[in-house]
């Protein structure tokens, strides 16, 4: 079937839901739609299909889908996670009154994400990309009465929009160079000679903003103001991956323009910044957000190193455990009414939740036999030939393991508080069941590693790699255990600790930059006011001349007669000598 078909269930659901009023019904319709969409997936055929939108003077603007195995991979994530997310949402929102707005926005997002996944030309790509930004804005600021949420939404879209405009400029420049919007055409053209460097740089900027990389990475932690399912879906599994996905699809462009090293450098830098932040962060979701930033960074650096297969597998695997961990954080926040990990207790009360969370943590850290393990191996092997990079990656792995176990240990403290424990025990099934499913997938996904050739990339692992990986994870675990579970070593790193909290610096930079831009605005404004005054000043000048002119008429008629005679004489002189 042509790929656009997968959009249909969500489109229909969107229309239906806008007419309904009952929150629960709306949720059921959405869940049903997502299941239908998923069911359609196996029938999507590879290849391209385009729908013409409009033509102008030599430019054919069409919506085009182009399906290869990689698109299928992303579609699996989008369509596969959707049912879980929708189901969890049903239980997550306690007051059902806002469910309609939520599901409308969620369905719109899913629609856009699916469209993005199947896009075969820049037009479709851009349309979907823009809608990803917009729905993300709406969903992050979902609780708009909350000041921090609206501010976060504003900040996010202001940053991401820079990438959106960079993207459209890039599209225009690519079109100018190659006269086409289709990915396949552009890719084949870039090999031939004239490399549009500026367009590529703009494309990279777009990728960096969408996937929250340096220097645009701080929006992702702020996006945690949105509801948990939004964080689970958009900001870990799908939307933020759009940039990475673009890097994969358009890889040959970067290859031919020799810009791949940008990804490596920025990726590694971002990963370091993210990990250090995660180690100090206290907000339960923000830790996970920094973790996502780190993951995306590693994916991008792997792509930069050319190891697309590894990146893709990581891309695939990470989605599941990350959303699982977010689900878990949702439960934690519910029970404890706090988002500060130091004030979160009692995770162990609900065994299902605890076990699922544990699975997720182990997967993220990279323990065998969870899919994270294989993902990390893949990433590590992409840098096997560069000792420095490999060392950095290894340190990052330790750090990752450390902070995620910290996250687990601190939140799973016991408590005597009955209220907390009751909530844990009485969480709705709609929230628990998806977690269990995801926990299972997190193990099953490991198998995909060995069959990844289907997607076009052969992945292997060696014994040395396995041992190194496990060692790194264990080291991190031990640190975490000692520091947080047993409180044996007080983490006293002084200045390094302060420096590690580098999100302050970046946010400070954002703030300064924003103020700088604002000051420019004020400056221009003042200049404009002067320009305004110029008009008034000019008017005054004319008025002065006017006063001069009328001053001649002083009421004395003999003076007038005198002027007449003088005028006559002057005129005579004029005529005679001119």
């Amino acid at each position, binding site marked *: 079937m042509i790929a656009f078909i997968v959009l249909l269930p969500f489109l229909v659901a969107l229309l239906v839901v806008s007419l309904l009023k009952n929150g629960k019904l709306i949720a059921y319709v959405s869940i049903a739609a997502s299941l239908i969409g998923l069911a359609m997936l196996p029938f999507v055929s590879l290849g391209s299909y385009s729908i013409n939108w409009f033509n102008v*003077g030599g430019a054919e603007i069409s919506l085009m889908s182009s399906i290869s195995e990689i698109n299928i991979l992303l579609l699996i994530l989008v369509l596969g996670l959707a049912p879980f997310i929708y189901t969890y949402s049903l239980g997550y929102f306690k007051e059902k009154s806002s469910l309609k707005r939520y599901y409308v926005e969620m369905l719109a997002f899913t629609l856009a994400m699916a469209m993005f996944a199947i896009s075969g030309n820049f037009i479709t790509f851009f*349309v979907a990309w823009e809608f990803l930004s917009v729905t993300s804005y709406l969903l992050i600021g979902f609780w708009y009465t909350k000041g921090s949420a*609206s501010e976060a939404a*504003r900040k996010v879209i202001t940053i991401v929009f820079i990438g959106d405009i960079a993207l*459209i400029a890039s599209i*225009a420049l690519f079109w*100018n160079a190659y006269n086409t919007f289709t990915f396949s055409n552009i890719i084949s053209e870039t090999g031939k000679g004239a490399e549009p460097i500026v367009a590529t740089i703009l494309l990279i900027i777009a990728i960096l903003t969408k996937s929250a990389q340096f220097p645009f990475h701080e929006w992702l932690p702020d996006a945690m103001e949105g509801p948990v399912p939004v964080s689970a879906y958009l900001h870990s599994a799908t939307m933020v991956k759009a940039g990475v996905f673009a890097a994969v699809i358009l890889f040959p462009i970067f290859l031919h323009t020799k810009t791949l090293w940008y990804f490596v450098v920025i990726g590694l830098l971002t990963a370091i910044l993210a990990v250090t932040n995660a180690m100090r962060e206290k907000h339960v979701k923000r830790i996970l957000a920094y973790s996502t930033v780190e993951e995306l960074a590693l994916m991008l650096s792997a792509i930069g190193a050319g190891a697309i297969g590894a990146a893709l597998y990581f891309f695939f695997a990470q989605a599941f455990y990350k959303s699982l961990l977010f689900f878990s954080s949702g439960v934690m926040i519910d029970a404890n009414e706090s988002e500060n990990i130091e004030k979160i207790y009692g995770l162990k009360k609900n065994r299902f939740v605890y076990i699922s969370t544990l699975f997720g943590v182990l997967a993220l850290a990279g323990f065998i036999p969870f899919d994270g393990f294989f993902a990390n191996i893949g990433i590590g092997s992409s840098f096997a030939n560069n000792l420095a990079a490999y060392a950095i990656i290894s340190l990052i792995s330790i750090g990752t393991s450390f902070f995620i176990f910290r996250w687990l240990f601190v939140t799973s403290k016991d408590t005597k508080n009955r209220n907390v424990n009751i909530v844990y025990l009485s969480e709705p099934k709609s929230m628990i069941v998806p977690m269990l499913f995801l926990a299972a997938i997190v193990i099953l996904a490991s198998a995909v590693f060995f069959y990844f050739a289907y997607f076009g990339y052969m992945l292997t692992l060696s014994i040395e790699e396995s041992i190194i990986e496990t060692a790194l994870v264990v080291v991190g675990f031990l640190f975490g255990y000692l520091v947080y579970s047993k409180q044996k070593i007080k983490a006293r790193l002084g200045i390094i600790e302060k420096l590690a909290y580098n999100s302050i610096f970046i946010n400070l930079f954002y703030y300064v930059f924003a103020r700088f831009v604002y000051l420019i*605005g004020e400056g221009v404004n003042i200049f*404009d006011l002067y320009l305004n005054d110029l008009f008034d000043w000019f008017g005054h000048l004319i008025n002065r001349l006017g006063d001069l002119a009328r001053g001649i008429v002083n009421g004395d008629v003999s003076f007038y007669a005198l002027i007449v005679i003088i005028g006559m004489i002057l005129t005579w002189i004029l005529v005679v000598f001119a």
Partner: protein
Amino acid sequence: MIPILFAMLLLPLAGVLVALIARRWASGIAVVVSLLELIIFLLAAWQFANGGKIVESYTFIPAINVNFELILNNITFVFTLLSVVVFLAVSIASRFFVSEERTGYNLLLMLAEAGVLGLFLSGNLFILYLFWDFSIVALFFMLFHFGGYDRRYASLKFIIYSIFSSSLLLIGIMLIYFYLPSHSFEIAQLMSTGYMIPKNAQLLILVLLLFAFMIKMPVFPFHSWAPDAYSEAPPGGAMLLAGVLSKFGIYGLIILFVSLPLAKEYALYIAILFVLSSVYGAATALGQKNLKRMLSYLSISEIGMIGFAIATMNTLGMSGALFGSLSHALIISLLFLLAFVIEKLFGTSIISRLGALIKRDKLVSYLFLFGIFAAIGLPLTSGFVTDLLIFLGGAKSFGILILVPATAIIINASYLFWIYKKIFLAGSEAEMFDLLDKNAKASMILLVLLIIFIGVFPPIILNSIGAII
């Protein structure tokens, strides 16, 4: 053959006569007139689509070679369409805003409609000039009689700048007549034989007309009249000034570029002028404390981009400019309408005094957000098609110069989202003094639907534009 274009001109005048007799129904008459205009226009459009351009000509002043000529071609089609739509929205919305002296206001409105339509439909430069000044005067009256607190200063400034602009235009028109081999005021003649004008005359005409249009659009550095005029104007007035009158300059610019080869030679410099104005408008908007002033700078910024699109001198850019004129007219009218609604409902348009409006009126909040998205180019709105065409055309002619308008859009987005948060989402709830009525809602919805409609089905407009260069 029914003189359908002439009918479009006469209709508002007939409306004026009827309104003078039946004063009580003046606002209703205005709405009816606008609605009929739309219907007649659609008929004319249908005729245009099937039969090519419509030309109606009557002898007027043979002594100076002036015929009263009306033309509906691919260029005037767009401008006429946007005028008719904006006037419809204004006449409906005015029923909500204007409660005193309705007769006078609606009389001026209908006169202005006649003037604007006459201008865009005119096929003769002399006639075009007649309606240009006439529209200015009509808007001047509307501005100083129905405007806000500082209206005297704003309207004086408006009329002086405008008369200066039209005077430059007048000299340019005379020069064109003098230097065209065929000695004609006809626009069609100008466009087809304009290249025959000697170079130094072309330069003079170019400078005069360019300055004239830059004042009108407005473009930095001749824009100083606009923020005052737009903010002090009555609700309909601002929508007309920003949405329709700015297009006088755009229309003139298109004719200029199509006719004079010299304009092509200087296209790059002119393009730079426009994009600088675009960024300037965006930057100045950052520091504004008054919502309406901010929107006027937004308008300046977007007009700069449209001017840039014209300077690209290729089909994509020109189509982008024409489509963008329509899109800009709709979007800026919507935003100004919303700003005035806010002012009426909450008593002020100063940003710091507004807050948490979403709790008070959801419709206005959602529509304003929609307006912002449309302004920054969200797909499925007309703004996207405009931006895309401008970027494509701009890239084709000027390459990386498109990064400048791109920066302008980014700046626009940043302050628009910032004020959206400040006005609608954050802060303490502002006091509500009034309620929306069906007229205001209808007007807003009309604009929104059109923005979406042409955003989803651009061929409807683009096919009528066809290939211009």
